[in-house]
């Protein structure tokens, strides 16, 4: 039986209430941390656990915490990034809706470790119903003495505030999120200074993803070493994977990092395989930003070994044959999917969501969308495929935040692995624009 660190009790009726959550062992980690540990010891356990940022970047959480500046007399802030907007990703939505107290417990432990007395949960505004669930849970925790002044007699005070966003993918970028939390447009900041030095209200700030923060109760209860014992190498612990697309069982699954991609895709415990009568064509393994892979490369490395669900194995082969774990947004495409149409769809997304500060992203995402649109609608030119590669390469690395890279990678990778499909659209526009027409040329379906 696979270890469940986050979702063990997710099916217990009433788990969204304080009493049921408490009965299942909830808030014991807060008691342990606040009554028996120093903030430094909490940080140490999280470092030992090796848990990496679950929002997509994969940066070690304990290390991020240790960068936090601690000048005298200046407040420090913890901000939870619950602006989940990466296409293909819906795990934080699932976690907050079903287990609000797990996030609150994690927020208390993490805020204590960082010395923050006011912490924020920035939730995308579309999830207003989840915000109400969180606010209700916070009120319960406060009544029970786990939030507010002098928590459990420890002398530690904490207020939790839930802030709704206004609808903007870019606010998932941590400095854009801080701008938004200050009541401004979500334009990412130039770095340095990093939020650890000058973050919210120019004070030292840590921004962590929902799932990252939710690991801390288990780490307190079981120790960082026990967490690090799960998984493979630097991919420690478990990960929530949001599975969508042409599979039998879409949904959110908590896996131990290290299982083969093939098992996750085909085993009944998880995705349950490709929908009946269809074949596996392509995979976006970690949210729309990561490179798309054809079926064969998704399942196996270049040397024939099975590809595993770890940060390292998914990126094995670099961008030539690999991809990234990202946010764990696992989007599966069968042979009925048009890669050109999907790439145009993703490009439209990034064009729509570009904040417009940096010219390469503001203009480049629009150009890519325009060129992809004309290819998809039968007006492509022979030179368009190389033009797209050229534009993508000039966005990548030339913007102040990662949205530029996120917009460039899906286009570059789709062309890298499915160039023939793009060329088929350009050379056979009449055929390609028939309703339901899909490229049936040579490719590795599984």
């Amino acid at each position, binding site marked *: 039986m696979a270890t469940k660190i986050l979702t063990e009790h997710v099916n217990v009726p009433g788990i969204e209430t304080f009493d049921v959550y408490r009965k299942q062992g909830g808030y014991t980690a807060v008691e342990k941390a606040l009554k028996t540990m120093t903030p430094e010891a909490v940080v140490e356990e999280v470092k030992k656990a090796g848990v990496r940022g679950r929002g997509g970047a994969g940066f070690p959480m304990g290390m991020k915490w240790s960068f936090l500046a601690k000048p005298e007399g200046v*407040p420090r802030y913890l901000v939870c990034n619950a602006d*989940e*907007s*990466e*296409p*293909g*990703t*819906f795990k*934080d*939505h699932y976690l907050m809706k079903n287990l609000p107290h797990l996030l609150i417990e994690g927020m208390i432990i993490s805020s204590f470790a960082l010395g923050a007395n*006011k912490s924020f949960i920035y939730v*995308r*505004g*579309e*999830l*207003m*119903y989840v915000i*109400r669930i969180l606010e209700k849970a916070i009120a319960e925790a406060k009544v029970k003495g786990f939030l507010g002044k002098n928590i459990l007699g420890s002398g530690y005070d904490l*207020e939790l*505030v839930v*802030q*709704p*966003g*206004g*609808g*903007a*993918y870019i606010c998932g970028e941590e400095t854009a999120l801080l701008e*938004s*939390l*200050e*009541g*401004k*447009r*979500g334009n990412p900041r130039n770095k340095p200074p990093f939020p650890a030095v000058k973050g919210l*209200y120019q004070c030292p700030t840590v921004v962590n993803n929902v799932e990252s923060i939710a690991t801390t109760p288990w780490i307190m209860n079981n120790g960082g070493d026990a967490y690090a014992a799960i998984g493979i190498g630097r991919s420690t612990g478990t990960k929530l994977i*949001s*599975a*969508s*697309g*042409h599979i039998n069982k*879409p*949904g*959110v699954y908590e896996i131990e990092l290290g299982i083969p991609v093939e098992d996750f895709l085909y085993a009944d415990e998880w995705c349950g395989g490709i929908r009946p009568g269809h074949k596996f064509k392509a995979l976006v393994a970690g949210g*729309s930003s990561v490179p798309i892979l054809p079926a064969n490369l998704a399942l196996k490395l270049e040397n024939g070994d099975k590809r595993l669900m770890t940060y390292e194995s998914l990126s094995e082969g670099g961008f030539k044959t690999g991809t990234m774990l990202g946010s764990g*947004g696992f*989007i599966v*495409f069968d042979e009925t*999917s048009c890669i050109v*149409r*999907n790439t145009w*769809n*993703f490009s*439209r*997304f990034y064009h*729509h*969501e570009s*904040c417009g500060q940096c010219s390469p992203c503001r203009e480049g995402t629009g150009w890519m969308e325009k060129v992809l649109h004309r290819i998809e609608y039968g007006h492509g030119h022979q030179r368009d495929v190389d033009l797209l590669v050229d534009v993508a390469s000039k966005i990548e690395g030339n913007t102040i935040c990662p949205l530029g890279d996120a917009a460039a990678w899906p286009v570059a990778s789709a062309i890298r692995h499915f160039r023939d499909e793009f060329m088929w659209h350009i050379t056979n526009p009449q055929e390609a624009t028939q309703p339901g027409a899909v490229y049936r040329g040579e490719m590795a379906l599984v």
Partner: protein
Amino acid sequence: MNMITEATKLTIQFTPERLERAKQSIADYPEGKQKSALLPLLHILQEQEGWTSPEGMDYVASLLDIEPIEVYEVASFYTMYHLNPVGKHVIEYCRTGPCCLMGGEEVYAHLKQRLGIDTGQTTVDGQFTIKEVECLAACGMGPVFQIREQYYMHLTNDRVDEIIDELSK
């Protein structure tokens, strides 16, 4: 400085319950950082008025003691705030990849046909507005649309008809 003018005072004010919520929201932030409550207050405004009208935004600016332009520039950045009047029910459908893989494009075409309007338009009776939005973080349950706070998932043409019938009653 209270920038509320006689004109705005007359046109829009929060109901007492909403004003209370707005004040609580302002109190959530440190002294002098009341501008942080801008996004929450714009949500309260839209909940009351149906959209973020210029008069409403001026009123929000007065509550936060900031310039109206600071409200306009923010409201226009985020996609959730309606800068023009909308219908009673605003249907916001997800047009992003995973929902389209699950047949979203057909379902949304049916929705538009059923209501006789295109994206961005409102039915003549003022009942429905359709907006297209990007990923709503419900990709495993696609196709998806949202009406106010409610998510509608696993949409099919028949399900869309049911929802429209229900809301039309």
